[in-house]
C-alpha cells in the first residue's frame, strides 16, 4: 500500500513511468471488462484507452485508502456504459446475419448467440456478471467498482443469470 501511495504521488506529479506501474497491470483486466461489455475488440481498446486517459488527468480523485484496481475498473465500466448508451450503430451490428455465416463453427456461433443475449442485459447486470465471472473479481471488489453494496451485486448477478438461462438452454438444445 505504501508503495502504491508513493507511485501515486509520483504519478500525480506527472511521472508517466509511475502511472504505468500503477495502471499498466490493470490494462488487461480493463480490456476484459470492456470486451465483456461491448463485445467488440476495437471498442474495448478505445474504452480502455479513454479510461487510462481519464485516470491520468483525474489522479487527484484517488483518495487515501482507495485501491487503484476498483477505481480504474470503475472508470472503464463507466466508459463502457457511456459507449453502450451512445451506440446507435450497434443496431446495425446486432442485425448482422450470424446464422448465415458460410461455415458456422459451432463454438463461434454459440458464442455469438450468447453475446447477443448478453447485450440484452442492462449495463448494471452485465457489468457485475463480467467483472465477477470473466474478469475474476470478488463480489466485494465488484461492489467497489460499481459503487453499490455487495448484496446489490449478488442480486444483479442472480438476475442476470436468470435472464440468460432460458436463452442459453435454447442454444444448448440446438447445438448440444
Amino acid at each position, binding site marked *: 500500500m505504501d508503495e502504491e501511495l508513493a507511485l501515486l504521488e509520483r504519478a500525480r506529479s506527472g511521472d508517466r513511468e509511475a502511472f504505468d506501474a500503477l495502471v499498466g497491470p490493470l490494462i488487461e483486466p480493463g480490456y476484459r471488462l470492456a470486451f465483456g461489455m461491448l463485445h467488440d475488440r476495437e471498442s474495448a481498446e478505445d474504452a480502455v484507452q479513454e479510461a487510462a486517459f481519464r485516470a491520468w488527468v483525474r489522479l487527484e480523485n484517488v483518495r487515501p485508502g*482507495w485501491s487503484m484496481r476498483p477505481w480504474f475498473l470503475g472508470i472503464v465500466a463507466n466508459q463502457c456504459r457511456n459507449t453502450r448508451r451512445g451506440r446507435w450503430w450497434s443496431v446495425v451490428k446486432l442485425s448482422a446475419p450470424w446464422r448465415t455465416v458460410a461455415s458456422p463453427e459451432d463454438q463461434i456461433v454459440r458464442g455469438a448467440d450468447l453475446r447477443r443475449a448478453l447485450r440484452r442485459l442492462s449495463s448494471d447486470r452485465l457489468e457485475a456478471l463480467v467483472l465477477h465471472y470473466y474478469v475474476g473479481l470478488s463480489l466485494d471488489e465488484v461492489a467497489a467498482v460499481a459503487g453499490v453494496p455487495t448484496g446489490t451485486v449478488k442480486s444483479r448477478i442472480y438476475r442476470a443469470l436468470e435472464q440468460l438461462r432460458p436463452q442459453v438452454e435454447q442454444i444448448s438444445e440446438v447445438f448440444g
Partner: protein
Amino acid sequence: MNDDLLIRRIAASLDVAPLDPSLRHRVMSSLPLARHRAGRINWAQAIAVGLAIAVIVGMVAIGYFRSGLRGSQPASHPPVPLSECRLPVYGFGIYQAGQQSDYEVGFLDLSTQIFTPAASSTTGPVDHLRISSSLDGVHIAYDRVAGMWLPVKSEWIANDGLSYVYMSGTDIHLKDVRTGFDRTLVRSGVVRLLVWSNGKVYYSTGGGYSVGLAEVDPRTGKSHDFSVPQLSEWWIASQDAIWGSAYYSGHLTRYDTSTGTFSTWTLDRLVDIIGVDSSGRPVVVQRAEGTDHSTTSGQVMIMRGSGDGEAIGGKDDILSADTTVIADGDRIWFSGTGQRIWLYSPTTGLLLLDQSANASLPNGLVIAGGCV
C-alpha cells in the same frame, strides 16, 4: 442447466478476442505529457457537434440570446449575448513523445465555431507557461479588465484586474499585471490558494483531512488563521464565500468573506463541489449511492440552501477535481473531456457544445473565462 455450466458457457463466449499485447504500450504512449485534458474524436462527438451548432443557430434565430440571459454579472462585465460570444479558451499542441508542448490561448467564436489565437501582445505572462508537472496543474485565465491572459485561475485576479496572486512552492506571490513587479505575500505553509475576495486573499493550510483556512491582506501582508468549525478540505471559493466540507460528511461549511461569519449547510446526500455560480452558490456533483461512494452519479446540482438543491442535469463527464467551472452571468460553463463544453443557463438547461470535430481548436480544450 446448472449454474457452473451456464457460467462456463458465458465466459467462453467472451473469450474470443484476446488482449493485443501491444495495447498497454499503445495506451501509455498515447497519454499527453502533462496530466491535462486532451481531445478524443469519435463518431458520436462528430455528430453531436452538428447538433450543438444547430441548437445555437436555432436559439439565435428565435432571438433567445438577446432576451433571456440578462443576469447577475458585475456591472463592469455586461452580459454578452451568446450569438456574439467569443469564449476565451486554451489548450495545447499535439503530444509528441519526449517533447514539451506550448499552450495556445485564444477565443472561440460560438457563432462561427472558429478559434482565433490571441494576439501575442496580450499573452505576456502566459508565454512563459509551459506544460509543467505541477501538482496543482496549469491555470490560465483571461483577465477581461486588463485584456491580458494570465497564468492563474480567474479567482486569483484582483477585482480591478491589475494584480494577481499565484503560488510558488508553498509561498504566495503577488504580481502587478502592468509592471510585472513581483513580491512574496506569504512565506511557506500554504496548501492551496483560494480566492482574492473583498480585498483579502484566502488560502488553505495544513494537510490530509484537516485543512485550515487563512487570509492575508495584500496591502499590509498581515495574515490571519481562522478557527474553522469542523475539519474540512477547503477547495472552492467564490467572490463572496468559501466552501469547505469534511469528507463524506453531508455538510458544507460556508465562510462569508463579506461578513466574516461561518454557517453550515446540511445535505441529505454526499456531494463533491466542482464550482460556484455567479451568485456564489455551490455547483455540486452528487455521489452515487453505495458503500464507499467512490463514484459519482453524474447528477449536477446547484445548492440553493441547506438541504435545498436544484438538479440541472446528469452528465457523466462533468465530474469533480479537474472540471473547470466558469460562472458567466446566468450561465455556467463546464470544460468537459474530449473537446466538449457544457453550457447551463436556467432557461436552456444543460447543453453540450461538442467541439471534437473543430480542427481549428487546440487540444485539451479548457475554458479560461466568460464570454467577451
